[in-house]
């Protein structure tokens, strides 16, 4: 092997530094969650699983985790179905103002979250959705839709619509064509979008803070309340749990998108 030049070594070192700077501060919650002390001192002087025990024995933490998982699952399902339909409809339709319609679906991404939060709060007050499971599900689904639309649109951009014509002439109705031909081929994009939608809901804080009630809190909301009220390292255990759920899903979503792109390159060759 050729000996790496100084410039190349420097580049590698610098990149590693940037990567560490991006990730390490986040990862610091992991060792802290295993501390034996009753403070956030880093590095911990002794080790224990006390705060995980705390987390899993305190109904406030447990309920919030359960709420978050339930809301994220339902919101993901709704966002995936609606987002896929929207992306598919937008890609096959021809009408004036189609680009504008496409932008509209990305709206929740563009709007500042605090504005979305205030607007949602005001509307949900009138509709009596504040502090309800339905309220959380509705707004989290809306926040997840742009990610599904984006991923599915990308998958559809390399989809050959002649396949739909072929299916039609072979005797498949529009619905069967979509289910048996289009859907399986764009599935990687849909799965990536769904994973994003799940994580978006699972991590969501700003809007959730506005529409929470003491009776119904998601995990991030509970964590925020915990930091505001007390100094309790249980929150580092909670953070580690959120990290353990979200990070693998996002990594999975990313690799799925990559693999899909590679595949489409092959089929174009």
């Amino acid at each position, binding site marked *: 092997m050729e000996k790496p030049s100084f410039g190349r070594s420097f580049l590698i070192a610098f990149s590693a530094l940037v990567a560490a700077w991006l990730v390490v501060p986040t990862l610091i919650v992991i060792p802290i969650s295993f501390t034996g002390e009753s403070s956030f001192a880093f590095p911990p002087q002794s080790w224990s699983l006390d705060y995980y025990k705390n987390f899993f024995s305190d109904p406030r933490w447990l309920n919030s985790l359960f709420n978050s998982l339930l809301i994220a699952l339902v919101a993901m399902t709704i966002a995936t179905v609606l987002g896929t339909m929207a992306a598919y409809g937008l890609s096959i339709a021809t009408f004036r103002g189609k680009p504008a319609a496409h932008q509209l679906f990305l709206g929740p991404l563009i709007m500042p979250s605090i504005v979305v939060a205030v607007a949602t709060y005001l509307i949900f007050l009138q509709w009596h959705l504040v502090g309800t499971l339905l309220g959380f599900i509705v707004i989290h689904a809306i926040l997840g839709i742009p990610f599904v639309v984006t991923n599915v649109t990308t998958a559809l951009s390399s989809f*050959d619509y*002649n*396949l739909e*014509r*072929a*299916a*039609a*002439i*072979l*005797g*498949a*109705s*529009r619905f*069967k*064509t979509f289910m*048996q*031909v289009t859907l*399986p*081929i764009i599935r990687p994009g849909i799965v990536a979008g769904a994973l994003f939608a799940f994580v978006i809901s699972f991590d969501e804080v700003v809007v959730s803070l506005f529409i929470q009630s003491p009776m119904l809190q998601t995990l991030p909301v509970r964590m925020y309340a915990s930091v505001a009220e007390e100094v309790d390292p249980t929150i580092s255990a909670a953070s580690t749990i959120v990290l353990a759920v979200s990070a693998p899903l996002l990594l999975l979503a990313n690799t799925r998108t990559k693999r899909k792109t590679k595949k489409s390159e*092959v*089929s174009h060759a």
Partner: protein
Amino acid sequence: MHSGARLSETGAQIDLESVTKVYRGSTEETIKGIDLSIKEGEFMTFLGGSGTGKTTTLNMIAGFETVTTGEIHLDGKDISRQKPHERGLGMVFQNYALFPHMTVRENIEFPLKQRKVSPKGIAQQVNEALDMVDLGQFGERLPSQLSGGQQQRVALARAIVYSPRVLLLDEPLGALDRRLRESLQVEISRIHRELGLTFVYVTHDQEEALGMSDRIAVFRDGQIEQVGTPTEVYESPANSFVATFLGDSNVFSGSLKGDVLDTGWAQFKVDAGMSSNQQSGAMDLVVRPEHMSIGDPPAAPHNSITGGVISVMFQGAYRRVSVELSNGLVCLVREPASVRSGVSIGDRVTVWWHPVVGIAVAGEKASA
């Protein structure tokens, strides 16, 4: 022997009646009134350049495009308002359109499953179709693991496995190299013969059209210029467009007086049988390059012109000689390589032909 006999069924008749197509947002007719009757079991080719409406017409038969006015009949029944999946036709696409997530076998099973054929029937029919295209051992492969020619044969098998009575083929060989094109031409002709289906074949390739078709419809500008057997359209083109589109042609425009065409710079004798078909007036005289000869004309009646040789191209069995006339027109002569005329660039030569080989057609101005 191929065991495809069971798949066969008689073809259906297709009638297009005053079919027009105007695309949304356009005021111009893309298809300007087509009347065409395709017989049971016929191999009909739509021949034309790009944008002439041949593919649009095929797509209207398939149901991918709506008919603006007029009707399309399948065995007398109006199908022009039916959805593609209700029409029961078969189709082969230029880019194969195989489902990439299904194996070869699953691709061929697809139309049978839509028709709720029993599993036993499916297995039997798929095997027959695979044998028909000589791909028996490729059933478990994915389309991406096959060559272009093999993929198109899978597409053929998929299109015939459910015994449609009509097979539509949209430039099926367009993406293949020359050698494969030729072998698939033979295969497609064989399948047509064995199954007896009605084939509607779209191509821009005149050799494909002449070699495979029972009849050819020559498309131009949203209309059909001529319908006829390959021999008819080649030997008796309806006009100089058809004459020049199918094969090389020399076209001399002029006006007909009796059996003499006056081009303004020369006078050519026209075969009496030919000239009587045409009214007097603007007329084109079409002479195929292979009917022209270079050298001293015989004593018998003939037409001749003189000019300078500007190119000689050896093409194996033939030599293509371009002769520029004094008025700037270039005349193309194709002489068999066995004729040792010894012409070379710069020679002044006489080109002659018998009046009987000239084809008199209505002049472009008159027919437009």
